[in-house]
């Protein structure tokens, strides 16, 4: 195991939890609950924790369904890290570049959806983007990871509904 030491006065990332889940519909609720447990001590204010939980559930649903095609034997990997005042949740599936999260999804338009011009679905990524402070997507071969970042020192500006 290779380890490097740096002299920089940056906080050392701390892994709070890492686990896998079978790709079965509904298991996003397990991810949500376990991520919440892992954050019990970090002082994320209640409304921000709820936002992060919603984003984790949506990202895990996408990983289960779109990334791993509901194939239970392919695990969804979840890792929770604290880096200074950042909480980072990484959710990885095996959907590679074909993953719908990788493309430019059409922005949900409520009026179009009501008039049938757009499918009623397609809220997942929209919710995720609007719930967390930052969302990034990376791919490495088949590994497709969505990174959700939330700052513990959240400010009041995003506490409105």
């Amino acid at each position, binding site marked *: 195991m290779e380890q490097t030491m740096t002299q920089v006065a940056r906080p050392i990332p701390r892994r709070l939890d890492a686990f896998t889940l079978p790709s079965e*519909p509904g298991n*996003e*609720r397990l991810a949500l*609950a376990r991520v919440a447990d892992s954050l019990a001590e970090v002082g994320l204010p209640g409304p921000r924790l709820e936002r992060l939980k*919603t984003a984790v*559930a*949506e990202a895990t*649903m996408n990983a289960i369904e779109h990334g791993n095609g509901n194939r239970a034997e392919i695990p969804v990997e979840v890792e929770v890290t604290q880096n200074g005042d950042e909480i980072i949740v990484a959710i990885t599936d095996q959907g590679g570049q074909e993953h719908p999260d990788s493309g430019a999804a059409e922005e949900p338009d*409520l009026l179009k*959806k*009501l*008039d*049938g011009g757009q*499918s*009623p*679905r*397609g*809220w*997942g990524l*929209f*919710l995720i983007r609007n719930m967390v402070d930052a969302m990034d997507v990376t791919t490495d071969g088949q590994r497709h990871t969505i990174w959700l970042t939330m700052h513990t020192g959240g400010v009041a500006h995003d506490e409105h509904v």
Partner: protein
Amino acid sequence: MTSMCKATTRVLPGAAVIELSGEVDGSAATALTEAYQAAIAEYERARPAGGEPGTVVLDFAAVDYINSTGIALIVSVLALARAERTRLDEAIAIYDSEESALSGAGK
């Protein structure tokens, strides 16, 4: 940990109220559709001849979980209402309480 979505309907003057409780996710599809149909039917029975078409109020106060699939189901019900009920207000509005929804819709 999980609780099925329940939807009960009641009719007020000028409005049909659908009270939702439990979890609004993919499993709520049948409950939502049936509640909408029941609310419209009850409302039409109670509506005086020549009376105005009413407002449909969805009450989420007792909902403890909703996800993107649940939102899609709600949007489907709203799209159905919009297609079927020509006198529905163009706008769909969100209110903090049932009382403000009813008074807002009455404006």
